[in-house]
């Protein structure tokens, strides 16, 4: 028993040591909160390295501003809480600008356009938005897709069970669609096209109708107005000097 206790104490001290050292490390750097399961914006490659369009863009912008950044994976459902409790400094990972979110965070100027598209299986009999009545529609929880669907209250109420089905991740929605439990999903176009390519585009059909066009922005704490301006200037520079386009081609060229 004595040995076990000693081992536990040693572990506790090692642990305490780790905790404090990592804390002082990240104090002066800007911490960017990312959902590292969100391909192609931010995800892990085979070396477990964080890669993606937003990761590259953030690195480029940080260089332009001359600040150091670190990426902190977060649970996407907790992103605004993480920001407002100072655990992260920016939300930057396919973060759609919405009115509801504007109440909690400041957004930079949009840097990428996106639509909320409706995806069904190739042989589905759903052709228009109106066909969704009585059907099961799934979306990612806490996502802008969910917000877009709920905005059309009549349509949302006409769905099976009177509301969309919410899943943890978009890929869960796709799997549920293929399993035949969901009849349609609503999802960011950027992500949907990537997933469809991975899973076999011929299996799906994208409807002409959609749930509106949207834009991605960087989420900044309301009090960080100086940082917001710096980011906006750097984004503008990146777009005018062509470095943004190079990056865009790298990730989104067909």
């Amino acid at each position, binding site marked *: *028993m004595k040995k*076990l*206790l000693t*081992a*536990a104490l040693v*572990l*506790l001290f090692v*642990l305490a040591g*780790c*905790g404090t050292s*990592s*804390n002082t490390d990240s104090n002066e750097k800007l911490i960017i*909160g990312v959902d*590292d*399961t*969100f*391909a192609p914006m931010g*995800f*892990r*490659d*085979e*070396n*477990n390295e964080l890669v993606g369009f937003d990761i590259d863009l953030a690195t480029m912008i940080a260089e332009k501003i001359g600040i150091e950044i670190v990426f*902190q*994976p*977060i*649970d996407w459902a*907790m992103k605004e*809480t*993480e920001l407002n*409790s*100072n*655990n992260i400094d920016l939300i930057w990972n396919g973060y759609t600008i919405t009115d509801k979110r504007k109440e909690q965070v400041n957004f930079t100027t949009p840097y990428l356009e996106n639509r909320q598209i409706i995806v069904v299986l190739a042989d589905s009999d759903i052709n228009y938005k109106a066909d969704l009545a009585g059907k099961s529609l799934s979306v990612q929880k806490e996502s802008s897709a969910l917000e877009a669907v709920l905005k059309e209250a009549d349509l949302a109420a006409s769905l099976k069970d009177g509301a969309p089905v919410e899943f*943890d*991740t*978009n*890929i869960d929605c*796709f*799997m549920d669609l293929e399993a035949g439990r969901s009849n349609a999903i609503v999802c960011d176009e950027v992500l949907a096209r*990537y*997933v469809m*390519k*991975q*899973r076999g585009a011929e299996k799906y059909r994208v409807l002409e109708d959609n749930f509106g066009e949207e834009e991605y922005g960087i989420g900044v704490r309301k009090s960080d107005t100086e940082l917001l301006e710096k980011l906006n200037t750097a984004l503008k520079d990146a777009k005018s000097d062509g470095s943004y386009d190079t990056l865009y081609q790298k990730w989104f060229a067909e």
Partner: protein
Amino acid sequence: MLIGKLILPLFEGTLVTLQVFAITFAVSLPLAILLASIQAARIKIINLFFQLFIMIERGTPLLLQMMFVFFGLPYMGVTLDRETSIYLAFVLNYTAYFMEILRGGINSVDSGQLEACQVLGYSRFASYVRVILPQALQACFPSIGNEVLTLIKDTSLITVLGASELLKAGRSAVNTYGTAVPFIYVGIIYLMLTTTAEFLLKKTEKKMDPVQGE
């Protein structure tokens, strides 16, 4: 090949899972033994506090406790980093469960033994540590084993604070490669971890048994 791309991310995820498991277990079980022993001394005011502690820890979800420690405590002026929050929440929660298990174990030992020890001239402390506690531990060993397996699986909750453990690594791979196959590998790894734990538990249980052991 998909599996080649998955090896490293899943391996690193497994390391995080193992780390959280090992530290939580190594801290909470000894702590619970200590606290349960204090509880066995039946000091009213202290036991009232223990009861309250156990009620809160067992009565609310561990997920909520983690979120409270990380997101809630800063409102009270206590800001902990991610790792510390995870370990604090896990250790407190598992200490509470282990304490309840141990309480049962200690109660199961016939109180006549304590009297017998005193007749033989042992101090109260010595008789507790040398006679009562070993029997109590042996009696509640299967229940502790249960908690060990639960703990291995509960580590998957830490993703809510942004930690990248095994299940998260699997989910990430599912999103990246657009297939659910990584979940199968994740399941296999969890099974490997739990069966190894079960094997070690069985071995320890045999060793503790005065009849079968050394």
